[in-house]
Each structure stands twice: as C-alpha cells, then as structure tokens.
C-alpha cells in the first residue's frame, strides 16, 4: 500500500467530530472518502468539553446566529443520535448576585432564536432539580441535553465506513502535496511505525480543529486561530439530572452537565500559545475557580468526590483582541481556499461547536460537492446514525448489558451477551464486560487501552482503573505481544493519573495510593514496562 498511488475524491484531515461528520456526509453523497487522524478519534476538543447538547440559549444574547444553529442541530441530534444523547433538559438560574433583569432579555432573545425558554418559579426549579442552589431567585427552563462526544464521533465514523469511506487512525498529515496552485493530496506518516506515503484526492478538507492552523500553514495559508483553553472537573457521580447554567453573560465555570454516571463542571477560558495545545494541564488556580463557581450552581459539589481534571482547546477563529475568547463568535467558518487564497482543492472547516458539527460537515460537503459537480443533497439530518435506529428497552438486561446498550445503542447486538466467558465484567464501576471489550477491539479501531476507554468507558469510573486496567489488558489483544500490552498498561495508568493528580486530595489521594500499591508494589508493572510512551495520543 505504501507505494501504490491511492486516489480519493476527498481526504478529510482530523478524527474529531467535525472530521468524522464530514467523512460521513461525503460518503453518503457517494464520494470516495479517506478520513485520516494522527492519533485516536476525539483526542482534541471533541473529547475535552462538557458533553453538552446546547440548546443555544447560552449564545442567544451574545451570538444569536450560533444560537439559532444550536437549537436546530439540537433537535436534529435528538433524532439521529438518540443513543448518544440524554434528554435531560436544562435550567438557566439567576443567583442573588446576578442581575434578574437579564432574565427577560435572555428569554426574549431565546424566543427570537427559536429556543423554547420558559420562566419557571424557583420553587418549581428546586423540585425539578434538587441539586440546584437553593438561593436562586430566578429560573428558566430550556431544551439543553447531554451528549457523549466519543460515541457521537464513533457513530459518524462507523456510518462513514458503512457508506464506503476508508479510515486511517494514527496517521498524521506531514505535508500537503501541492501541484501549481492546487492541493492534490497529502503525505501521511504512520505514527506507529514512522512509515510515510502519499495519498491523492481531488479535494482535501482540513477539519483538524485548532491544529487546522498548522495544516493550513503547510500550504502557506494563514488562518488566524484563537486557541482558548477550557478546563473542567469530573465528579464521581451525578449530582444533577438537568443541565444547570447561570443566567448571565457566559463566564467561568457556569455550566454543570450530567454525563453518563458522572457530572462535569466547566469551563475556564484562557488564550494559550498554539504550541501548548498538545500538552494541556489543569492548574491549581483553575481547580479553585471551577470549584468555587461550581458550588454556586450546585452547593453539593463542595462535598462530592472529584475524579479528575482535564482541559481542551476551542478552535475559535480570531476576530479581535479579546483576551479570553468569550466574545468570539461560535459561528461556523468554511474557508474555500480557492476563492480566499487562490489555492484550489483545499477547504477548511473550523469555528463552530461540537454541537453544530453536522451543519459544519454539511456546509463543507456542499462546497466539495459543488467543486466536484456532485448534486446529491445532504441526508445527514434525517438519517439516524448506526446505533440510534430505535430506542432501547433496558428492563430485560443485565447490568453490563444495560450499560453496553447505553453506550452502543442498537449496535450492542454485536456484543456477545449471555454466555459466561463474555459476560464477566472487567470494569465493575462502568459495567464493561469481556464481550464488550472484544467487540470494541475488533470493530471500533482500538489499538490500546486508552482507545478502548473512549469506546467503552473502561477505567472511567470511580477508581480510574485500579483493578480493571490490568484485567482488561489481560483480555484485549490476545495476539498482541505481551511486552507491548504491558507498556500499554503502564501508559494507561499514567494517563489516568494525569487527570487525578491536579485533584489529588481526599478519597482521590487514597485511591491513588491503593492503585500504586497494586500496580507498583504487588504487580511491578513499572518494572516491566520498557517504554515510556508519553506522546500526546497517550494522554
């Protein structure tokens, strides 16, 4: 495959939600597609946000266009990505320290954007969401929901594949191949073995998030990006069952989202140099801000175990000198570099939000189709993603089966249940069975434990891998070399620790000591691991 010239209609760069959605849309319109990702899916901003299915209300006042896009996409995703979305609904609360007059403006702007916003009695709000700060003086109910970005990305990738797209993970674009004034393909490096090769395409779509600026640079094109770091904290269980937002202009740590079995508070927003985007760490100051502000939304966060801290970088397109990026539009930016820079065969899709990925994909696919003379229209708004065809009925299943169906929707049919060797749980916190591991390893582009975690939640529970990581490593990749598997295990434990370290006090510190006692004292995994693979994709 290395020397053979491969031709595609479209190469999509970036395995985040935008890239995956674009690959799906292109494939559904009959284009021959290659999706390339330098590491794993959802390693960038896609996997490092709130998991919030915005209603758009947050942007109604400051960014009405984005708000309208959000609510439209919100309603679409509820239908096409049912197994990735939990219809929690949301509240915008006003605290005594906030200006209650803002509420009226807020509701009016929401209504204008098409977002159903209903002012409710704070007493009712407290009944609907008992975790909410009891001091609230105002509450508005809006159609927020929670969404699992890992699942959503995977579902888009799977559907792209079902429509004929090819997918390469751990393949990094190291060069854009330019002939005269046209991008004709990309040079790829296999990040596992270092081999490079070229692939050719009529159109190259840059969907690399914040790293898109570096891709554009390869073609000598400048995109003025604004890398805005956002930090978040994950709590050990669900404190709230509705999304809780502050009813004021967007600020730090003013959204609390219930995600799967946890809840997430965020975010902060600070501009960071592009070089730092690969090495995000949450600082003690950020932890302090997140906790202090988070407790204003739900006071019980102050007495809830924190599991980990993480940070992502928003791919905002810079427009002014706002130091935080809060006032930059979340609007979608589609760049036709032929028109903009005189460079044909190259387009960039950026800005936007995870929330509006489908629309972003549609817009850039429209552009590609137009260039390629394809007339087929976009079907992604109405065609359910794989796994979301019908609503699951949980009742009849075992714990693991319920958990697995929650993660894979109808694709859970591919997970073997009901025989003893597949039903055994490797991860008891998250109910991950041997069968689910086997399914993920064979069908979902799993190369290591961290990939597996993104597909199944293995090691994402309370203990962050204390026993399950070793069990899972023993089960997965039987054909793999043991040495590679032990290196992988050591890398995984290090990755888990990176999220725990900024919040290492209380039960978390006790957990860390127990885990170290098992992995280092009892097992000696650190003595066996020969390689310390600490590249970004392991993080």
């Amino acid at each position: 495959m290395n020397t053979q010239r491969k031709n595609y209609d479209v190469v999509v760069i970036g395995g985040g939600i935008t890239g995956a959605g674009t690959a799906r849309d292109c494939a559904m319109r009959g284009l021959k597609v290659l999706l390339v990702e330098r590491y794993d899916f959802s390693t960038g901003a896609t996997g490092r946000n709130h998991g919030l299915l915005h209603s758009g209300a947050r942007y109604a006042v400051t960014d009405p266009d984005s708000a309208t896009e959000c609510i439209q996409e919100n309603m679409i995703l509820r239908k096409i990505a049912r197994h990735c979305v939990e219809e929690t609904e949301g509240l915008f609360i006003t605290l005594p320290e906030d200006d209650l007059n803002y509420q009226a403006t807020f509701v009016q702007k929401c209504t204008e954007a098409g977002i159903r916003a209903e002012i409710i009695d704070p007493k009712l709000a407290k009944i609907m969401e008992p975790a909410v700060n009891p001091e609230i003086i105002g509450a508005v109910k809006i159609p927020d929901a929670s969404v699992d970005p890992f699942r959503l990305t995977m579902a888009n990738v799977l559907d792209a594949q079902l429509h004929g797209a090819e997918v390469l993970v751990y393949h990094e674009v190291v060069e854009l191949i330019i002939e005269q004034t046209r991008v004709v393909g990309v040079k790829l490096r296999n990040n596992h073995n270092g081999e490079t090769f070229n692939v050719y395409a009529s159109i190259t779509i840059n969907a690399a998030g914040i790293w898109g600026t570096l891709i554009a640079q390869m073609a000598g094109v400048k995109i003025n990006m604004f890398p805005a770091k956002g930090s978040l904290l994950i709590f050990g269980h669900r404190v709230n069952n509705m999304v809780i937002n502050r009813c004021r202009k967007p600020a730090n740590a003013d959204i609390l989202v219930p995600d799967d079995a946890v809840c997430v508070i965020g975010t902060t927003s600070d501009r960071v140099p592009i070089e730092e985007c690969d090495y995000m760490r949450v600082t003690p100051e950020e932890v302090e801000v997140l906790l202090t502000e988070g407790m204003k939304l739900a006071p019980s966060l102050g007495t809830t175990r924190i599991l980990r801290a993480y940070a992502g970088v928003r791919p905002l397109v810079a427009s002014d000198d706002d130091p935080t990026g809060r006032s930059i539009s979340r609007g979608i930016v589609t760049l036709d570099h032929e028109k903009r820079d005189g460079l044909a065969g190259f387009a960039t899709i950026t800005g936007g939000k995870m929330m509006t990925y489908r629309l972003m994909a549609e817009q850039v696919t429209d552009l590609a189709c137009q260039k390629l003379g394809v007339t087929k229209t976009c079907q992604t708004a109405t065609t359910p993603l794989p796994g979301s065809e019908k609503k699951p009925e949980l009742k009849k299943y075992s714990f693991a089966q319920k958990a697995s169906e929650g993660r894979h929707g109808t694709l859970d049919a591919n997970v073997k249940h009901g025989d003893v060797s597949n039903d055994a749980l490797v991860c008891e916190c998250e109910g991950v069975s041997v069968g689910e591991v086997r399914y993920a390893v064979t069908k979902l582009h799993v190369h290591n434990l961290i990939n597996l975690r993104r597909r199944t939640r293995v090691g994402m529970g309370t203990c962050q891998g204390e026993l399950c990581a070793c069990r899972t490593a023993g089960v997965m990749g039987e054909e793999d070399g043991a040495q590679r598997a032990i290196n992988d295990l050591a890398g995984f434990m290090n990755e888990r620790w990176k999220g725990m370290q900024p919040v290492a006090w209380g039960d978390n510190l006790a957990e860390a000591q127990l885990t170290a006692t098992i992995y280092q004292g009892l097992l000696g995994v650190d003595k066996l691991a020969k390689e310390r693979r600490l590249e970004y994709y392991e993080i």
Partner: protein
Amino acid sequence: MATETQTKNVSVNNFEQCLKCSICTVYCPVSAVTPLYPGPKQAGPDGERYRLKDKEFFNEALKMCLNCKRCEVACPNDVHIGDIIQAARIKYSTQKPKLRDMMLANTDFMGSMASPFAPIVNPMLKLKPVKGILHGVMGIDKHRTFPNYAHQKFETWFKKEAAPQQDQYRKHVTYFHGCYANYNYPQLGKDFVKVMNAVGYGVHLLEKEKCCGVALIANGLAEQAKRQGEVNMASMRKAIAKGHPVLTTSSTCTFTMRDEYDHLLGIDNHDVRDSISLVTRFLQQLIEKGEIKLAFRADYRKRIAYHSACHMERMGWVPYSTRLLRMIPNIDFVMLESQCCGISGTYGFKKENYERSQAIGEGLFQNIKEVHPDCVATECETCKWQIEMSTGVPVMNPISIIAEALDVEETRKLNEK
C-alpha cells in the same frame, strides 16, 4: 470558598468513599454460595452510581442480600454498603411481597394470633402434612420448624407475676422485650427481670411496644415498618422522659431501632438512640463504673462458645457481652470465629433460600462442632433457631446464662448498699 467546603471531602453520598478494593466481597456470605447475587460491591456502591443515572439499573437480585452488614464491618473506608443495598430495595423494588412474606414479616401479628392456640398450633406446625402445605403453597421451607409459640405471652406473665413488685426498686429500666421473648420464649424475659431485679433495678414495659420491624424491612414492607417504628419511638420517648433507659435482649431489635430506623426508614431517632442499649452492655458499663456487682454460683460450670451475631458485630458491641460472660468464674469460654449463621431472620425460612442459608452457615456449624461446647451464647434469636437446628447444640442468650449462673441472694445483698 472551595477551601472551606472541600476541607472535609466527605461526600454526603457515602457510596463514593468506596475505593473499589473488593474487600467486602471477601466477607459477603451470599456471593460465595450463589452466582445470582451480584455481590456487595456491585449491588452497593457500584450499582448506586448507575441507579442515580437511571433507576432501570436496579436489579431485583438485591433481595438476596441478607442485610448481615458484614460488608460494612469489613469495609476499611466506612462505606455503608448494606444500607445502600437495602435503601435501593426500598426505593426501587417493584416486586410486591407475597402472602408468605407478609406472614413471616408480621411476627407480632402471627404471635398474637398463635399464642392463645399454642397447644394446637405448635404440634400442628410440626406435622408433616402441614409442613408440606407450608412448603408447597406458602414457600416456607419444609426443613424449618417454626419456633414454638408460648402458652402464655411474656407480657401476660409480667403483668401478673412481676409488675406489682417493680415499683419497690430505687432505680428503673424499661424493657423492650421484642416478639421472640413475648410469643416464643418468655423465659428470656423472665431471666432479664431476674437479673435486673437482683442488681436493684425495677423493670417496666413500654406503654406500647410494636415489633421493631426488621422482618418488615427485609420483606419489602418499609412503610409498615416505619409506622411501627414511630410508635416505638413515641413510647420510648415517654420512658426516657421518666429517666428510664430502654434495654433489650435482642441484638437485631437493638440494631434496627438504633441504626436502621434512621438510615433506612427515615425515622428521626436521634433523641432516643443513645438511650437504647442491650442489657449486657448496660450491666457491663455499670460494673465498670462500680455501680453494681454480680455474684456467681461457685458450682456453675459450662463450656460456652460465643457466636458474634451479625448485627452485634455491626454495632461493635461484642466485647461488652464477652467481658460480662467472662466474669463468671468457672466457665470455659471460647470465642467462635465471627461468621454469619445463614438464617438472617426470615430469609432462611423461605424455601428458595433454604439451601443457600445452610451453605452460608456451614463454616459456623463446623466450628461449633469442633469446639464442642455445652452451649452457644448469642444475642440473636434467629441465630439460635438456626444453630440449634443445624448443630443440635443448645443456644442461650448471654443474659440467660448470667441469670443461670447468678447467685441471686448474694448479688442482691451486694447491691443493696
């Protein structure tokens, strides 16, 4: 602000203190005998996290939990695993209790129905055809023999024979006798009165006593348990107001009223809790303080093996009883290894649980046979049935042993001063 609130870092949700170390699994008597039970960790803290997400994650197999609380005693991180499991059953279970369960659960109702007819009921409950019906129709295991119903209830005896003399004492206690002493084994109550009178305490009963409700909770009748609990608390408040502590002879009743009322039923018992004590603990504390003395018969000899009943273990009160028993001069005292006997109240009476129940107790039965005691001492009445049925060794409440060994006259004299 964060600095202040995260200072304790103790979650109000106790389940998340769980470090997932799996120690509870080692000490769960159920998970080793049936693969159908998910085990304490999964049924408790792991499951709870997911039940908070979606109640559909509740599993009816949680009813297999004995509520022995051995997981809680073993947990190094103070996670109330048993409470989490029982609370989940109360909150999420959609199964209605069967007639059999209602019968077993309503120990006082059954007792008050059966006692007047004890001469007829007792032999009847032992008849093979009756047992067959109970087994086949009702689901009460045929191996079980219902404890005899007494011909005369303890309360009746007390009012007739003991009550008139009680006011002559300077100091007073109130006795919560429980269903077992009342309907099945009044001798236990009589032993209690004998010892308390000997050390100079008058004994009184509660204005109104209801079954503590432990069997109701176990059989999915939490609401009824709560109503009965409220009645008990109200009566106890009156006794306590008179300065009478409330004493018990049953470890399970004590544990239920002190801890389960608050943890599972939401009964506010904070003003009563500390005044409820097991009689052995009460006596032991008075002896420590030098307020009372016990004199024992010199000729009393027995090999006594002490069995730590699950709820006794959970309360952490075993040393009170064992230190008291060890004061009897010529006994041969052996501590049995602490493990569950398998009966767990009404659990072992159900035919679907019988084999499991016996398998759980096997370790204890073996241990008793090896030790070969004259009697086993324990504060739990259902342990008594189980151990007697399974080993043939008689089982006595420690207070009955004290009563038997006591030199009443000498004790009275010692405590008159």
